[in-house]
């Protein structure tokens, strides 16, 4: 029987919870993919990120809200695991929501205590937009399952 490497829902959520960075694909005006690495956080289990409103990905998402997110871990073949999550973004310019998303991301990515980030996040948030990813389809793999671990 072929061994399935697919992650269970809980395992996929655990992988998302332990990661800090993802690869974010958006679609340029000419149809080519635009790919960047972003810090992210989880808000009620959903992927959240923020970016400058003037950035290329923000412009792309204004035109077309479809994204693909890749979160992966592991180095050698039998430790590789990942989640590829396709969906659409829900953008927000609500100041409180942008501050909430930004605080979680800065705290997570830099390992800093969130209670001391209010000044910096409040300073930078007005230039940024927050996004939540609404998943449409998920593909996942965990090569550790091949080794029967």
């Amino acid at each position, binding site marked *: 029987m072929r061994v399935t490497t697919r992650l269970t829902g809980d395992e996929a959520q655990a992988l998302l919870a332990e990661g800090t960075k993802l690869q974010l694909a958006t679609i340029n005006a000419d149809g080519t993919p635009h790919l960047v690495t972003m810090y992210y956080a989880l808000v009620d289990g959903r992927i959240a990120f923020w970016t400058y409103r003037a950035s290329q990905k923000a412009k792309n998402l204004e035109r077309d809200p479809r994204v693909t997110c890749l979160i992966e871990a592991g180095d050698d073949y039998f430790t590789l695991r990942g989640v590829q999550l396709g969906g659409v973004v829900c953008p927000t310019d609500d100041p409180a929501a942008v501050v909430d998303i930004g605080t979680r991301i*800065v705290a997570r990515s*830099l390992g*800093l*205590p969130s209670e*001391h*980030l209010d*000044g*910096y996040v*409040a*300073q*930078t948030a007005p230039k940024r937009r927050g996004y939540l990813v609404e998943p449409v389809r998920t593909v996942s793999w965990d090569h550790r399952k091949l080794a029967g671990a």
Partner: protein
Amino acid sequence: MNTVSVDPDVCEAFGRCVATVPAVFSLDDDEMLHIHQPTEDQLPKVRVAVRLCPKLALTLNDD
């Protein structure tokens, strides 16, 4: 005694430290950073400010 210092040749006045601990860091009209040495209870925020500097211009000397 913990003292914080700035390398003025590296600082580009992003102001993240000022936003984080305005009682310790301030920028003047010429975008020069001025430091009012922190008290013990300001140190946790100063440590965050040092980490947030995008130019790595701040140094906290822990004795």
